[in-house]
């Protein structure tokens, strides 16, 4: 083949261009630390990386949601714990008041304390997380109970009644959890609804029987009634505890998944630094060699040797 001057020049130039664009690409890889900077670099991997980023973003959100739910559950749990302590105290008082040795005066005094306990329990049920009342269903701006003699539940049934959505946290893809407790479920409405057989009613009955000096009622129905209320309170605490456990394990699972996703994202789009640098070095060596060879080829001609 006849090799002409312009052919040599064009080939040298196009080779240099090819090497230089490869160098530029490697350089941008090294600078950005990314294997993929544009979708066309590898469309499949780019889409994969986008999906992974979305998943990581979602998981970060789930973790925040779970943390919020855990705070909520902790508040609920500490309220329930206080209520349990109140009930235990009421139980002690009931034992004192139920004995035959107790007279009307001492029973009256005990009744006063029971009344205080009722107020204390209602106050505890009015606990809030942030600025939200945690036991009013979704009526988070309304305290569940008014203090005083009115035991009417002020909130709603959301979360307790399956038909009404309660306060729900999204704790995973498609996984939700209702985190609110409805105070009326275990406290009832006391005097407003004397037949609901819940805690406030039991305590109101005890208070009434103490004031009426009715030892038999105290020893009979009241004793078993309070015991049953304590049991159902413990059940609810067990349920809450199980939910907290579920949140804990969800956190652990999401942490693991996020770790795996981050690794995968890094594998998908991050540049291998050592590999990139070696690539860069070999490419720049090739570029230098091509420059040198090109300079020699382009410069020399027959003219150098003719007189």
């Amino acid at each position, binding site marked *: 083949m*006849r090799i002409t001057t*312009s052919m040599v020049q064009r080939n040298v130039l196009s080779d240099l261009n090819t090497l230089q664009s490869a160098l530029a690409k490697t350089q941008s890889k090294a600078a950005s630390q990314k294997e993929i900077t544009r979708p066309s670099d*590898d469309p499949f991997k780019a889409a994969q990386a986008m*999906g992974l980023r979305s998943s990581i973003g979602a998981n970060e959100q789930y973790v*925040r949601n779970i943390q919020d739910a855990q705070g909520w559950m902790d508040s609920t749990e500490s309220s329930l714990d206080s209520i349990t302590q109140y009930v235990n105290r009421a139980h002690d008082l009931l034992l004192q008041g139920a004995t035959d040795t107790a007279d009307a005066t001492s029973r009256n005094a005990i009744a006063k304390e029971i009344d205080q306990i009722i107020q204390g329990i209602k106050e505890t049920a009015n606990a809030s997380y942030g600025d939200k009342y945690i036991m009013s269903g979704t009526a988070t*701006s309304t305290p569940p109970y008014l203090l005083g003699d009115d035991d009417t539940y002020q909130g709603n049934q*959301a979360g307790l009644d399956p038909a009404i959505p309660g306060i*729900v946290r999204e704790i995973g*893809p498609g996984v939700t959890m209702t985190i609110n407790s409805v105070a009326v479920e275990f406290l009832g409405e006391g005097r407003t609804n004397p037949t609901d057989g819940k805690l406030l009613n039991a305590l109101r009955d005890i208070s009434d029987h103490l004031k009426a000096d009715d030892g038999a009622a105290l020893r009979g129905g009241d004793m078993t009634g309070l015991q049953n209320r304590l049991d159902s309170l413990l059940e609810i605490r067990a349920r809450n505890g199980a939910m907290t456990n579920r949140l804990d394990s969800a956190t652990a699972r999401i942490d693991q998944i996020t770790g795996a996703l981050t690794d995968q994202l890094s594998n998908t789009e991050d540049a291998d630094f050592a590999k990139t640098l070696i690539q860069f070095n070999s490419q720049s060596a090739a570029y230098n060699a091509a420059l040198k060879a090109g300079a020699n080829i382009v410069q020399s*001609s027959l003219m150098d040797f003719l007189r």
Partner: protein
Amino acid sequence: MPISSFYGMQTSLRGLIAQQRMLDTTGHNIANASTVGYSRQEALLSASLAQQIQVSGAGNMTGAHLGSGVDVQGFRRVRDQFLDAQYRAQNTNLSDWQARAEGLDSAELSLNEPSDTGINAQLTKFWQSWSDLSKSPDDQAAKQALVQQAGALTDSIHSVRSQMVAAQDAATGQYNQIAGAGGEVTKIATELAGLNKTIAAFVVNGDSPNDLMDRRDLLIDQLSQYGQVSVEQLQGGSTNVSFVDGTTGTKYPIVTDQTADWAGPPAGGWSPGGQMGGLLAIGKSGGTIDGYLASIDSFADSLATAVNNAYGGAFFTTSAPSGASIAVSAPIQAAPASITSGSGATGSNDLALAVSQLRGNAAIDGVYKAFVAKVGGDLNESQRMQANAQVLADSVEDRRQSVAGVSMDEEMSNLVRFQRAYQASARAMSTMDEMLDVLINRTGRVGL
């Protein structure tokens, strides 16, 4: 017939003149070594008509033929028309993919993916805002943040769409600059018609206007960049040049003999290949970018529909085209507090939750992801095809240059060759001169 004493002088003179023409041609080649489209030339020499002389011993009068030197017959350009046709086909293909790659490159750039600021990232943040709202359903700050984030998302969608439209407009504009009335093709057509006229005038006289023909070939090379060309050589040195539709084979004349025919692209659709074909493929209505716009619109549409359905009201408003018009509805924008997070009391969050659970939805996030992969894939293919076409075009161009290009080494050696031949002819002439000197000045001087 007697032979003149000066016969040899004449023979040498012919040699001197011929070698001088060869040197001139070499000089012309060297001067044009880097002229684009130039094909090297060479002088055609042949021995001049021999002198018939009578020689003793020959019985008849036909005698012998005494050589009389050399004549320059003409100058020809060294060029392979077959390689020209091959180069033009490859050039058309290369320009086609080049135009596509360039157009799609700006379309891809407008996506700004993967990044922390593209639509994908905005979408993730948008879902997060809903999730945050579901945690504080009546929080003004959360609602305000949601409206801001939704605004950022719709802004990103608008900006991507408008940049795609700009890329489309740029492709269409470039196409019109090439093919439209008064565009590049028209200019070339006019020049070609003029060249055809001039060349024909020379060819009629038996001349070969090499440099004009080079110029004509270069113009046809340029046309082959714009679209697929067909060249028909006419008797008398003129040509017919037309674009050929790659699908139907229909010819669209650019130049017919000495008339420029090009008055703009055909009214209906056509597939001319080359830069025009590439620009049409991405820019025309129903082209690649149009498809992207439709994808963005349908993405915006399904986003708005899904969010509005889950929200149970008009959170987003859209009008055709959705991608350019999707926006947070005016009442919500005016009063973010009017966002209802739940269907129940203050603390209910079922609506916000329902929207937030759209995250990762195949019809929203999935559609967008697939769209980005499609844009990336299209560009990737164009770039790969462009690289392939470049290799092919380069190799044909190499073969063409191998035939037609100027090799400096060759010209230098020719220079030496022709210079020596010139010197030798001059020496032959001095020999004749010395011979005549003996005859004229030294003969018949016996005794002087």
